[in-house]
């Protein structure tokens, strides 16, 4: 492309618009979640909605800076960025501040910075650089191992912070590896099936599941009866899944310690132990469930306004949306995420360079994982692991890291014709 003058000329307007809209929606709901009495100042810097205003403003500045910087900076300094984020993760283990039993924070004045959020950016850079720059004709196991190592190193450091939720998000880079052919379709399929059956086993009697699997297998097998190889595979698959279901059930009943079971049981049985481990989830479901079709209105959510839900402006921000804007609000937010993600897939696929595409898919993977797990946990579909809803939840590090990732990709996208 020849026109290098305007930063915004080639930028994807859809993504930019969605970014601004979603951070705006996020701020409005943080305001509602934290709002306590009439007369609260919008720019009250002691309140989280005031701080979030600063975070959004500075994130915009960072985004603008990224758009100004030459794309070669990212390709050349990818590994430097990765190493810096790794060093930050090590440093936070030594000098960090502990909040909620997690040693993941640097305190700077009144603001807290979470290096683990930026580590995702580092991983994206390193993966893009590694997979994109190497002359990899045929992916070998050595390549796979190195790619996994890039992801594993920060993941382990984050796990050392005792931040299980964020650690799990690093697993989302599997999607990137899948797209690049480092992970096969079958692997992804079985991984999904294993997770699905695991949760299902805990929720439903194991024999009902095995019975259902048998019926599905028999029907499929009958339809495909001409293809003997398929029937044979199906039979093996059925036997394996049945064994897996029984194993999971046995393990859950007999191997896990009681405190291990607690969080999972909360998910499975919903309202067990309402004052303890189940309190968050129960209150979260009450808030969202009481929203109805159109919600109770801005600042009218009774559960939100009377602070029944802990962590409401951060991990449980979706409660405010569900309660005050109802199913309509939920639909809009999920719709926005889906459109954003699908648009990013389109953008990623139009990249000529692998580097740019990997940055694109990294953005997609991180966004998608946060989105699916966060909303899933507020409505009891996945266990409660504390990770924020991207662009919406209160929290500077998360917003910053995502903004960097997103705008780096948008910048690369504007130069997609120049890159190869």
């Amino acid at each position, binding site marked *: 492309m020849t026109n290098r003058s305007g930063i915004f000329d080639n930028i994807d307007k859809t993504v930019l618009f969605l970014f601004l809209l979603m951070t705006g929606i996020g701020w409005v709901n943080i305001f509602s979640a934290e709002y306590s009495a009439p007369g609260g100042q919008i720019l009250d810097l002691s309140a989280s909605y005031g701080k979030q205003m600063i975070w959004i403003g500075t994130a915009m500045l960072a985004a603008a800076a990224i758009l100004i910087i030459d794309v070669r900076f990212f*390709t050349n300094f990818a590994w430097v960025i990765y190493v810096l984020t790794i060093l930050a993760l090590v440093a936070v283990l030594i000098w960090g501040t502990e909040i909620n039993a997690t040693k993941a924070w640097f305190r700077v004045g009144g603001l807290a910075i979470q290096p683990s959020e930026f580590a995702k950016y580092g991983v994206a850079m390193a993966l893009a650089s590694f997979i*994109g*720059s190497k002359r990899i004709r045929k992916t070998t196991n050595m390549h796979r191992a190195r790619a996994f190592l890039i992801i594993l190193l920060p993941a382990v450091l984050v796990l050392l912070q005792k931040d299980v939720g964020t650690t799990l998000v690093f697993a989302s880079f599997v999607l990137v590896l899948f797209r690049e052919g480092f992970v096969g379709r079958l692997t992804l399929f079985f991984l999904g099936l294993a997770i699905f059956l695991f949760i299902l086993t805990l929720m439903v009697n194991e024999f009902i599941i095995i019975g259902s699997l048998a019926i599905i297998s028999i029907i499929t097998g009958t339809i495909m009866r001409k293809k003997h190889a398929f029937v044979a595979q199906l039979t093996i698959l059925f036997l394996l899944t049945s064994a897996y279901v029984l194993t999971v059930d046995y393990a859950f009943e007999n191997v896990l310690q009681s405190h291990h079971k607690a969080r999972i049981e909360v998910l499975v049985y919903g309202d067990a132990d309402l004052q303890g481990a189940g309190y968050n989830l129960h209150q979260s479901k009450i808030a969202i469930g009481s929203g*109805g079709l159109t919600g109770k209105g801005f600042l009218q959510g009774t559960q939100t306004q009377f602070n029944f839900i802990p962590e409401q402006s951060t991990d449980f921000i979706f409660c405010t949306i569900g309660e005050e804007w109802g199913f309509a609000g939920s639909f809009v937010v999920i719709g926005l995420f*889906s459109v954003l993600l*699908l648009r990013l897939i389109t953008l990623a696929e139009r990249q000529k360079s692998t580097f740019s595409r990997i940055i694109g898919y990294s953005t997609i993977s991180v966004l998608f994982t946060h989105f699916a797990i966060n909303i899933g946990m507020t409505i009891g579909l996945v266990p409660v692991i504390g990770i924020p809803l991207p662009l919406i939840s209160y929290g500077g590090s998360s917003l910053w890291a995502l903004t960097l990732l997103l705008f780096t990709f948008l910048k690369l996208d504007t130069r997609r014709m120049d890159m190869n």
Partner: protein
Amino acid sequence: MQRYNKTDQYASRKNVIAALVAGVGIVLLIRLFMLQVIDPSYKAFARSNYLRHITDYPSRGLIYDRHGELLVYNEAHYDLMVIPGQVGDIDTVAFCNMLGIDVSTFESRMLQAARHSRFRASLFEKQISKNTFAAFQEKMFRFPGFFVQPRTMRKYNYPVATHTFGYVGEAGPSVINNDPYYRPGDFIGISGIERSYEEVLRGKKGLRIRTVDVFNRDVGPFYEGRYDTLAVPGQDLYTTLDLQLQLYGEHLMKNKRGSIVAIEPATGEILTLISSPSFDPGLLVGRQRTQNYRMLQNDTLKPLFNRALMAQYPPGSVFKPISFLIALQEGIIQPHTIYQCPGVYQSRGVSIRCRSHPNPVNVSSAIQHSCNTFSSIIFQQTINKPGFSSIQESFSRWRAYVQSFGLGQQLGSDLSYELPGMIATPDYYDRIYGPRGWRSQTIISLGIGQGEMGVTPLQLANMTAAIANRGYYYTPHVVRAIGETGELNNQFALVNDVPIHSMHFETIANAMHAVVNNGTARGSRIPGISMAGKTGTVQNPQGENHSVFIAFAPADDPRIAISVVVENAGYGSEWAAPIASLMIEKYLASEVTRRWLENRVANASF
């Protein structure tokens, strides 16, 4: 940058990722649709989370006597309530120490409350002391889920008329199940006018809906109080009771079993209703109520038993005026009809003894001297009157006359638990003797008020009022007006007529006047007041006879009709008549001049 590009090989995988994104979005939306639109339970949870329903208990209506003297009022007290769902991790030991209970009591009460409802308030400790209340107010923030509910408790200015007032107690399970107004711990009138005027006295509970935050702090009314209702105070009752007469009667009835019922004949208003032995109404209020109730229940003298409404006696000789009135109306006798009394009535193997008195007797002197012979003859003639096809028919007619005086049936007063008494039916005798097996002689004792007949003291007083009125009565009642406006209690304005001519009543009233002036009750004459009365000595196979007296005064313009029953006291003239005369004197003259009689009565005990 490297020119190598592997896009093509795995490009189709974007579809898998896109499908994953879309699939997750759809799953989340389905789940949210179920949660937010389909499933109603979370909406209910949300309400119970942040709404507190606070009941405002109205003050119960006050009770006054007929002169406006305050008899029953209220005093504030405090109940400690709990909403189990909100009780968090509290310092149980400190809490128990404050209340003076042990931890196991605490736990069992919490369990009980939780069984009732997790989200609704249950009574935890009733009527806590003022000190406990003060201590609790200070530390309330430490015990979320607990709150103090102000309530009112009955207080009595005078320890009298217990049976008439009745008492208030907690609504039992059967009431709660049948009437949605009542919740566990609510009070309800259990007996007396507290029961019969419950809906008037209780008022209407108010409901305030408050919103609270996660710390159970009140953060204001729900929707600016749009759904709140104000408590409506109970309406006051202006009774027909005369406090001074009631006090005096209870004084006279001390150490005796029996009852006094006095009625104003012109209105049916009950001036006094006494059942003795009685007890202080204050005993059935407050924390000691259950214990006191048990004590009263175990008392062999049965103080809880309201004799005035629930004790049945054969009326004895006080029934004779009725029997005479029926015979007069039926034309069996005339006022001047004369019979010889040989001291005993004998007919076909039946024999009834009579006391010695001047002979022969007419209607007036037969009443005056309570002649059994005269009574038996006219009863026999009434039943055997020609023109009836059977004894069943003639007896039914006689019985209908008796019932027209309000005997043998519920009068329908505004008092709780009024017993009907009983007058035997023809069927009753048919069952015993066979349809052809009984004659007038078989049932001859009915003519002198004995036999298969049971009446209550209230019915006796009402019957007396009917005689005093010369042929009609108003249903006796104890409340003359309801509420501040003094609205009259109109439900008792209907006249009940007795189908007997008033000239016959005049005859009998005169005879009853003679009873007091120169007959069986001459010892109970009141100086300056003309009283008409009739003595009765009710045969009691279980022990000493019951002393009974009915009276009204002044004889020509009656303002009070009274019945007195003193159980196991012997002759009617000896105890019941003096008591009735003292009561009438007290009521009509305010001051009792016959101190010696008053002392003799008050000091007697049976």
